[in-house]
């Protein structure tokens, strides 16, 4: 099942941990807020993506299934 990383912008507080944990999937804008790739998460990065989701201090990230 293809998956995509999504950020809830109302929950995100700009801690920036996601960009440290998953630099392949997340970069930070000039204010420290994540720019999440809209591409599907490659199979090899599945664990990395899940780690970013579970470790987000604001619980703002989600890994969603894409049909």
């Amino acid at each position, binding site marked *: 099942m293809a998956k995509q990383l*999504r950020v*809830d*912008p*109302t929950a*995100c507080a700009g801690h920036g941990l996601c960009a440290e944990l998953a630099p392949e999937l997340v970069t930070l*804008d*000039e*204010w420290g*807020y994540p720019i999440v790739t809209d591409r599907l998460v490659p199979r090899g990065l599945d664990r990395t993506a899940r780690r970013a989701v579970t470790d987000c201090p604001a619980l703002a990230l989600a890994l969603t299934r894409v049909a």
Partner: protein
Amino acid sequence: MTDSLTLSAPYPASGPAAGDHFATGSSAGHGGPQRLLPAGGAVPVDLRAHLARYGALRHLGGPKRLIAEVQASGLTGRGGAAFPAYRKLAAAAGSRPAPIVAGNGAEGEPASRKDRSLLWISPHLVLDGLQIAAQVAGSRDTVLYVQRNPRLHLRLAQAISERAAAGMDAATIELREAPDRFLAGEESAVASRLTGRPALPGYRLVRGLPRLGSGQPVLVQNVETLAHLALIARYGAAWFRTAGTADEPGSTLVTLHLPDGQVRVAEVPLGVPIADLIGSGSPVQAVLVGGYHGAWLSAAHAARLPLANSALRPAGATVGAGVVAALPAGRCGLAETARVARYLALESAGQCGPCFNGLPRIAVAVGHLAGPRPDPRARADLERWAGLVEGRGACHHPDGSVRFIRSALRVFAAEAGLHEQGRCSGTNPEPFLHLPADPPLDDSDWS
């Protein structure tokens, strides 16, 4: 394309502030079919006059029949998004538990006055529509969510009492006040407010009806959409389609800001030439279509376009909630845009980092461009920030704000050139576009 002009005479619009008086001046009287606004002046219609004019509310049968009729009518939401009304009704009819129905008259857009004018003049059409939507959705409870305005609330409370005394409604109607904020009418903000929380937009991963804190879904329909629904239930889809275009049928309410500074609310068929709305009285340099999330068009361009999304979308604009503002010659379009950009930045709910950080910076950059000999970096900064806020909010506020500002940079490009040389074509420094006198600045004002 219809070749008829306005369906009814333009009404002098009510003022924007709470407690402001609703003007009831004379109207020119074009004749033609009467739909939402009765011809002959802005006199409020009480229940007796309403029933005499439109007849009793007939029920077309079950929800399926009504949804099919609304689908055939082609009615779209008149709150700005132009979403097909039948699809929301169908979603509501299929929702468990049954949704609460909310008539949305928040009208947070400072340039729009059509919803309050409709509620003032024809409240019973809106209340009829609320009852029909409740019937389709299987709801026993409805809410009329209306901007702060004591006179209007008193008038609506009277209208609701009139109906209660007549025993004509199956669903309850609760009148609720919307905070005076630009985003107070955003669909998820309405749901939040009805939950008892501040009227802030929410993030939704899944589409569909927004939900209250209790989990009950909310069917949010703009009050004008509900009024059209009341007429479609009475007269049918074929009748509705006798105005407007084949793709965008029906009439719509517009708020016109004329170059002489007058503000009028009118009911016009969709597809009406924009040139006919503005008239040819005084010289116009640009037209803002769709409000402060809409787009500027040059006067020459706007004069060739009808008020219809099929023609406006390729030009980067939409009908939105029906605001058409004709900027007269002698005003600086960049200065007008800078004032509104600052307002839009202050109206960010502050929940999403890119919007909270980006819009104020963008507004400052527009302010530079509106001044003499702007900082040469302002333009590039603005473009970069615009790219960073687009598509990164929970609601459409960053996207709509950027659309408005980008359109100004296109349409007022020659003016920007003058400003680089330290000049400005503006001869009249008085603000043209309407903004609230004191934008609320603290969080308590969201509820």
